[in-house]
Each structure stands twice: as C-alpha cells, then as structure tokens.
C-alpha cells in the first residue's frame, strides 16, 4: 500500500492529498486482532514508511503504532459495522496522527514536520482517510482470515 501511495497515487486524489491506505489496513488488522498483533504490524509498516519518506526513522513507526493501539482498544468496546465505525476510525486516526506529530515535533527537533491541524488540506485528508477506511474495511472483510493472528494454527 505504501509503495502504491508513493507511485500510482503520488499525485493525490483531491488537491494533491494522498489517501493513507496503509493506515486503513493497519486499523483493520488492529481491530480484528484483539491480542495486539496489529500493533506490531503497524510498527513495521511505519518503519517502511519512514524509509520511503523523507521522515526520520521512527516517526511513522510511532504514529502508526499509536493509532493501532487505539484501534485495538476500540475493538473491546464496539463491534464493526459497515460505515460509521470504520469512517470514525479512519478520521479519528488522522486526528490522532496530527496531534501526535505536533507533540513529537515539540519533543524532538525542528526537523520533524507536523500536520497543520486547522488547514483545509488536513480537513480534506481527514475525510478522504475516513472514506478510504470504509472501503478498505469492506474489501478486506472478504480476506479477513489472512489478517487474523491465530497461534493455534501454528501448532502441529
């Protein structure tokens, strides 16, 4: 998904904003795996995103892992539906990433870029990520078994 975002979707969908498809997949994986396997997947995906991006190593690893943790916690209090929950998760994860990027920028160095939380571009990205998460949740539901972590299957 990250390579798709960097190449085929690099021009963005609306006003140059690229949908964060990797975030949608991470949220799905974290939501269906209640034991936290999605958090590890999010961390590794974040490292790959750091290598593809001009961001310092660890930046997206931290942001994606934090979003995955929140998605895992949400799985204990709600069930997935077709539109509302995935949309709120996608938009909410974007807001979480925006707030955390500000905190990281303040804590580390000026080399960190942060989301401009009150800009039109951030609002558009929020909506695009929400809608793309709805679509990804619907599509990935058909191949859910490939994303579920089941230790019992590994046993002989």
């Amino acid at each position, binding site marked *: 998904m990250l390579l798709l975002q*960097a190449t*085929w979707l690099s021009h963005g969908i609306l006003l140059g904003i690229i949908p964060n498809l990797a975030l949608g997949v991470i949220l799905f994986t974290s939501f269906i795996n209640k034991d936290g396997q999605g958090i590890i997947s999010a961390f590794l995906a974040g490292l790959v995103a750091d290598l593809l991006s001009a961001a310092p190593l660890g930046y997206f690893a931290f942001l994606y892992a934090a979003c995955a943790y929140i998605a895992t916690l949400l799985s204990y209090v709600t069930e997935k539906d077709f539109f509302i929950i995935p949309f709120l998760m996608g938009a909410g994860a974007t807001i979480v990433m925006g707030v955390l990027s500000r905190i990281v920028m303040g804590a580390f160095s000026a080399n960190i870029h942060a989301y401009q939380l009150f800009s039109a571009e951030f609002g558009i990205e929020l909506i695009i990520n929400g809608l793309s998460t709805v679509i990804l949740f619907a599509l990935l539901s058909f191949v859910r078994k490939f994303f579920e972590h089941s230790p019992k299957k590994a046993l002989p």
Partner: protein
Amino acid sequence: MKHDRFHGPARAAHQKAAIVLALALAILFFSTRAVFNIPNFFQGYVIGGLQKGLYAMSSFFSRTIGAVSELRSVQKDYEALLGKMQTYETQAREYASLKEENERLKQLLELSSLPDSKKIAAHIIARDPSNTYSSLVIDKGTTSGVRKYMPIVAYQNGVEGLVGKVIEVNATTSVVQPLYDQRFFAAARLAKTRVEGMINGQGYRDAPLSLLYIPKSEMDQLQQGDIVVTSGLDQTYPEELMIGRVGSFKLNEFSSSLVIDVQPAIDLSSVEYIFAIDVPQPASPTSASAAEASGGGTK
C-alpha cells in the same frame, strides 16, 4: 461479556503497545540526532528498485493505451512542422549572429558569464507517500554523476524554473527536496528591483511559496506578476534561475518586512522530467592567491 482490561488478550495488547511505542520513540530519538543512519543499501537498491518497477508497470500501461491515439496526431503534426521548419531556419541564422555580437559585447564589458553547466536528465519515479513530508525520487544517482545539494530544474511552457535540490544520493536513485517543502530555503531576489530576500515552502504542493525579508519600503514598487529569481548568494543555486511570480502581498502592522506569496513557475503536479545542474564550485580565495604567488616566483 465485558473484557477485563488487565487480563487475557487485553493485557498482551497493552504490553505489546508499550514495547513497540518505546522502541519507536527510541529509534526516533537516535535518528533525529543523526546517531542512527539508515542503511543506504536497503534504501538505495531494494526500495529504489521496487519504486522503479512499479513506475515501469504504470508507465507501460499508460503508454500502450496512449500510443494508438498518438499515431493519428503524429501525422498531422508532421505536416505542420514541415511548414514551421523554414521559419525556424531563418531564425536560427539570426540567432547565431546575435549570439556572436553578445559574446563580443560581454568581452568588451569584462562580464563573467556562467560556464555552460552540465545537466543530468532524470525521471521522477516516486513521491513521498505521506502528506506531511515532500520529497521526490528520481532515477539517477551517483553512477550518473548526481551529487548531494545539486540544484534541480525543469522546463515547462518555455520556462526554465527551479524545482528543488538533491538531499540524498544513492547509486541509482536520488531524493529531491522540492521547493514547496517546509524545510526548503533559497536566496532569492525580485528580478525588477533586485531586492534580496529568501524563498521558503509552505509544505503543500498547491500552496504558494513565501518570499521573506523584503522590506516594507518595496511595497510601492511591488506588483502582482513580478518575477522572483535565485540570487546565487547561497552558492547552492545558480543566479537568475526563475522561481516564480509574485501573487498576493500584504503588510503586517508590526512587521518590518512584507508578506509575499509567490506562485511557482513550474507546476510540480505535471512534471515528469527534471534536470540536475552540475554547478562548478567557485575557486577559494586562498587557492587563487597561492596560484598567483607560485606563478610570479617562477618568472
């Protein structure tokens, strides 16, 4: 059944989250202090190879579909171009004579001209996958002569404009920081009044650039559409390279400089080919004086 927050799978999730987040913060701490370096091999060969492969696939499909309609228009263009050829031959002769006259005048005025810089053509094969960082990946690297901090230009609608600079170089790919990046700064000047300032990106491709440190006194002479060029004072970009045109400008009451928006000359959403300029480095004063002293001693 309500899940207990501190037992069973929830506890495992909390533990994994704590470890992973701590690890991510530690990596971020080291990487922002330049202690931990990204393995260039993995980034240069593996990631660069995957990006090139995906770009090749997408360009194959788009070119195949476009080739059919292109053939029809090529025939029409060919006939029109034959007619234009005669006009251009006449203009080429006039250009040659004007160029010779220009060289003679420059010698008379003893102006130093920029030597012809070597330009390395490259494709943009990937862009930053996030919306917070802005970077472009091109398909040329050290094997093609690309160096770190080389300026990047592009041609669009008959204009040569600044695109950015190289910030990372691998064997076969390079990463370019575009001029709309938040961290992009370049010494600039207004072409008309020659007042110097600094150009800075706003982080979004569609947002205008900011021209900083232009004094308030220039407000009467400033007009929308004025050209902004590089001044060459930062010794990274050659001078007189077009950056863009003045859009809107305003004066903040308690500020000593104007707030000027600049529309980039090059629309980076539609650029595919760029050129890295191999700018020759100026000789240092100490080496020049040492050369003169040794030449004087032998006479």
